[in-house]
């Protein structure tokens, strides 16, 4: 290194050396600014992508707090000591469709006559696999249907329309309307449901439910718990016919306790 070089260095750190070459400080400055902009911009975008899309329209279902399940058949007024059945599901999850189509009606009947207290946790498992928020939007649209009193029919109709492929796009929005009409909504009630769905009224709520259940360790779907114990529901499905042993299912749900051989292993 020549004396000139040393002087140049001493004069101003980072000033280009006499031998030529770019100024390290300037290049470092540019790189740091660009890197910070990219990372901060990325995080902001990520939080918007996964966060609120409803803005001021965002609401919690009537009488439900953030992260907590809905009770779609609360009007059946189950007894205080009725067995609590928790169902964790995602409209886009294929096994949830099997669960719904084999056991859904048995569970609903028991909930409708107040024999059990059914709590539904709407999760977004497939969203976290594919990106996008179709599971959250689908779940939110079902809460809108519950507001119009057609939870059960809408739930069945939307599961039947489940896309075969898991993509970030998920359900086409026309499927929600199809399910709503299939559930018997028309006129003013259909319009109210449509507005609720289009505004994403309950999207943030559904996302909060997924957060809360993940915190509790429920990361997959479907899960069914009877009085807090996971039921190995697959053991009640005939592998060939895909039909459920509804007699045993009814017995387990109404008794409020899962027999040892039907407890889901972790």
């Amino acid at each position, binding site marked *: 290194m020549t004396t000139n070089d040393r002087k140049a260095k001493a004069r101003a750190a980072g000033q280009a050396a006499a031998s030529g*070459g*770019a100024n390290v400080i300037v290049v470092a400055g540019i790189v740091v600014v660009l890197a910070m902009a990219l*990372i901060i911009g990325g995080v902001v975008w990520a939080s918007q992508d996964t966060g609120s899309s409803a803005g001021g329209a965002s609401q919690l279902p009537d009488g439900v707090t953030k992260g907590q399940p809905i009770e779609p058949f609360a009007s059946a007024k189950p007894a205080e000591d009725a067995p609590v059945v928790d169902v964790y599901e995602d409209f886009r999850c294929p096994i949830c469709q099997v669960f719904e189509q084999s056991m859904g009606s048995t569970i609903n009947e028991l909930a409708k006559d107040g024999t059990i207290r059914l709590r539904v946790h709407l999760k977004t498992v497939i969203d976290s696999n594919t990106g996008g928020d179709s599971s959250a939007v689908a779940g939110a649209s079902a809460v809108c249907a519950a507001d119009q009193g057609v939870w059960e029919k809408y739930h069945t109709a939307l599961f039947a329309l489940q896309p075969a492929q898991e993509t970030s796009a998920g359900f086409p929005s026309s499927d929600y309307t199809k399910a709503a009409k299939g559930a018997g909504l028309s006129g003013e009630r259909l319009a109210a449901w449509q507005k609720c769905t289009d505004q994403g009224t309950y999207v943030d709520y559904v996302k909060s439910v997924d957060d809360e259940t993940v915190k509790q360790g429920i990361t997959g779907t479907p899960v069914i718990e009877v009085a807090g114990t996971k039921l190995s529901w697959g053991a009640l499905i005939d592998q060939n016919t895909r039909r459920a042993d509804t007699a045993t299912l009814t017995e387990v749900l109404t008794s409020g306790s899962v027999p040892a051989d039907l407890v889901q292993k972790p």
Partner: protein
Amino acid sequence: MSAGRLRDHVGLVARLVLGGVLVVAGVLKVGNPLGAARAVQAYDVMPFELARWIGYALPWVEIVVGVLLVIGLFTRVSAVVGAVLMAAFVVGIAQAWARGLSIDCGCFGGGGQVASDQTEYGREIARDLGLALCGAWLVVRPASTLSLDRALFGAHKESA
């Protein structure tokens, strides 16, 4: 070929391997922030909300550091970050293994709970240790063939 030039070539390979893997890992996760957040949360080492933000940021950090390594700009600093990331991943995976969690590392997307016979902790740790070694080489000896450091700042400064 002189020993110095050979080592420069080793440096190039280390840069491309560590940088390339970081870029691929970042790009595969960047479009799915919820999945990235859930993958970090599955390690269960940080508060839930902090893990969410780490999940949002990590793919972008990986892309930035990976690109800098691939082009060989500020190689030593980038290699420090890359090696620290890999060391952190090794610790994270090892604690999950030791505590008996059954999760996918979520290194290249995916992540979260898996069946207990589907965990691949040993392989994931071995891979990340190898990548950490690439980083360590570059921290010790950042000079390498075909680097922007050399092109911009000259050979005498590229070890800065």
